[in-house]
Structures are given as C-alpha cells and as structure tokens.
C-alpha cells in the first residue's frame, strides 16, 4: 500500500471572512463605506489570526478501521524534562474527536485502570516496548476490557517566543488607566502518533504547527487582541485526527 504524505496550510477564520466579504460586495450594490469599515475591522482582527500548518503521514488515504464499540484513547507524553503536554489540550482534542461519534475514553480513566504502566516513567515510548507490555495478560486483559483499539499519543507544548513593547497601569484619586502597547508571539507544536492496540503497529502520525501574535493596547482601558494559537492547534489536530477514523 502506498503511504500518503500530506501538507496542509489552513486558512484562519479571519482570512475566510475577508474573502466572503469581498465576494458578497461583488454580488450586491451596498455602499463602499460599509465594505471598507468591515474590512478595516477585519484587518484589525486579522492581526490576531494564527497560521496553522499540518503535516500528516499515514499508510493510505482510507479511514482507519474502527468497529462499533471500539474506543480510542488520547494520551499526553509527559516524560520530557522542560515541558509537559497539558491535560487541557488532550481534553480539547478528545472532545473534538468525540463530536464525530468516535468512542473516546477519558485519559485519566485509562491511565488509572492500567496503573502503573502508563505513568511518565513507565509508558512505552516505542512499539517494541508496547509489544512487550501487551504480552502481560493483565495489561492485555484491561485493554480488551475497555475495548481500546487505538492509542493516540500527543506530544508538544505552546510557548511564548518573543515579547515586545511595554504597558503600564496607574491608579489615583482622580481615576486610573493603562497606557502603552505590548505584543507577544506564541507557537504551538504538537505531534500525534496513532498506535493500533490490536495489531500493535503504527497507523499514522500528524504534526501541527500554529503560530500567531497577540497584542495588548493600553488606551485608558487595556484592550487585549488575543490570538487563539493553542485553540487553533487543537481544532486543526482534532479535525485531522477525526479524518483518520471517519469518511470526510
């Protein structure tokens, strides 16, 4: 079977909105003023949009076989020293997948049921170790009892890369306020690897990179213009993982 390697760059919702506004203008006789004010507003918000890139590798374009009653578990890698794949992100991706009628077991429930074999110290990092672990009848029995067919390992973090500007706030008897301008870049990089727990093989992997800049404008009141970098990474990764298991 020929493997498939895909590289996709996703348009953010803001970019799609600009496109739709321009298309609508060309189909209607509304005044230019309305269009320009909308475009200015959108341009302001566009500064807060994230650029997300997804690279995927899988043996074929066909959805992965997932029978009725079989479950998927999304687990975070937590063995790196300087960061930790956070539980909120795992929950976010799991919820995205649940939306497509895929049975997704809660991460902590699975880890507790199989304790201590999926703790940061003991979790299998590769297929040879997984194969050895699944030779233990107790572990195999617990995996089968919960009908876990696939494991999705998520590894990555969201980091602040660069910060600039300054903002200061003051308060006095006459009132208070914030003045200045601050900006920061965030980068989310996550990798997902799908393991088949029945055939003990890798079914594919995905990598998502999401980057964006957020701003804080101090004009008496602080006005935050935040880029949902992590949220974009979650939705892109969740949707792409969904396409692994379901027909799109």
């Amino acid at each position: 079977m020929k493997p498939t390697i895909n590289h996709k760059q996703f348009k953010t919702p803001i970019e799609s909105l600009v496109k739709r506004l321009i298309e609508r203008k060309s189909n209607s006789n509304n005044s230019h003023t309305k269009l320009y004010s909308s475009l200015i507003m959108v341009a302001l918000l566009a500064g807060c949009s994230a650029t997300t890139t997804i690279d995927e590798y899988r043996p074929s374009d066909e959805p992965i076989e997932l029978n009725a009653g079989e479950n998927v578990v999304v687990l975070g890698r937590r063995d790196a020293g300087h960061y930790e794949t956070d539980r909120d992100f795992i929950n976010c991706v799991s919820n995205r997948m649940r939306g497509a009628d895929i049975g997704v077991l809660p991460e902590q429930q699975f880890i507790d049921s199989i304790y201590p074999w999926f703790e940061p110290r003991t979790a299998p990092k590769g297929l040879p170790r997984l194969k050895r672990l699944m030779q233990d009848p107790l572990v195999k029995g617990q995996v089968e009892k919960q009908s876990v067919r696939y494991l999705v390992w998520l590894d990555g973090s969201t980091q602040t890369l660069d910060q600039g500007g300054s903002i200061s706030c003051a308060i006095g008897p006459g009132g208070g306020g914030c003045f200045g301008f601050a900006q920061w870049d965030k980068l989310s990089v996550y990798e997902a690897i799908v393991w088949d727990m029945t055939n003990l093989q890798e079914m594919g992997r995905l990598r998502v990179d999401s980057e964006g800049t957020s701003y804080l404008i101090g004009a008496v009141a602080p006005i935050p213009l935040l880029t949902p970098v992590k949220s974009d990474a979650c939705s892109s990764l969740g949707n792409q993982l969904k396409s692994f298991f379901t027909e799109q």
Partner: protein
Amino acid sequence: MLKNYLSKTVLKRSLALILLAILSGCSSSASVRIDQEFPTVLAKPKAISATVVFDEAFATYIAQPNKKTVIDIGAGQVKLLSNAFAGLFEEVEFVSSLEESAGENSLVIIPSVREVQGSTPSENYLNVFEVWIKYSLEIQTADGETIDSWFMPAYGKTPDAFMASKSRAIEEASIIALRDAGAKLMLDFYRIPAIYGWMMEQKILEESE
C-alpha cells in the same frame, strides 16, 4: 441618598473581594495535604510474604521543601505504597512498628523519607512546578539481617497555568511524584541486585516463573 450610599458600599466591597480573589491566585506560599485515593496496581504479585512497617514518622510525614511550601504527604504515601506493595507480594502485612509484626513473613521493609524538594517556575526558569521525593527502603530478612538499603527517588511535575494557584500546582506535582514512586517500586524492586540474589537463594524465582 441612603440607597445610593448602600449601592456604592456594596460595589466597593465587591471590588475588594474580586481583587482579593485575584491576589490569592498569585500567593507565593502553599500548604497542601495529599490524602486522596490512588489506583490499584495492575500486576501479579510474587509468592513472597512481607511485612511493611509504616512508622508514625512516615505516616504523618510533613515535608517543608522551602520556607513558603508545606506538603503533608504522610497519609497519601501510606495509601500509595500499600497499594504498590500489595501488587508486589502475595501476602503482605502492614504494621506501625516492628514489634506489632507476628514475624512470620520472609521480608521486612521499612520505608522512610530522606528528603523532599520542590521548585517553582520562578526558581527553575521553566513553566513547570516540580516535586522530588527521595525514599529509602530498609529491606531485611525475617531474622533482621539487612538485605539492602534501597534509595528510591520519585519525581512529579505539573505545568504552570495563567492565574492558577501555586497550592493547586504543588498538590498536582506531589500526587504525580507519589504515583511515580509507585511506578518506580513496581518497575525496579525485583531488579535490585540484592533482592534478586536473595530470591535466587530462596529459590523463589524458579517457582514464580
């Protein structure tokens, strides 16, 4: 007039409460108690009987890794290690002093805490809270002969989150460190050379394999 004054007072008090709630999230001191239940270990115990001594110092251990952090891990570590030892030995007796033991089991294990360390993002320059627990396991035969004094380190970390309280983060990291202690014990106990040698002597390995 009175109504106006009252509404201003209520508004001021509400604002003060909100400010207090926000500032409590930024509090630099933490005092936590770990006494939650831990999952049962998934392992087949070996045909060995053991007595585990959780003395009072161990069962009520309160760690103070630094001036601003207090972690009461006594109850938590007893629950965790009770589970783990039950997964290692077919027969296990838990006592609070060696005198309480009937002396019929082939191994005696006395765990103790050597040290607990903690670090916060401001100390380690990483976005994580960390907790290290260093255990020592005194392992003896039924006759009181020392087989080994095993050093068992455990580590837990939890990511820093915006506006999250330090106490919650330290608590999480301590729970993860305790779970790691259980994992370390299950993974490495029978790999301790002295224990392996003792099992060979007692012909326990051949029987359990």
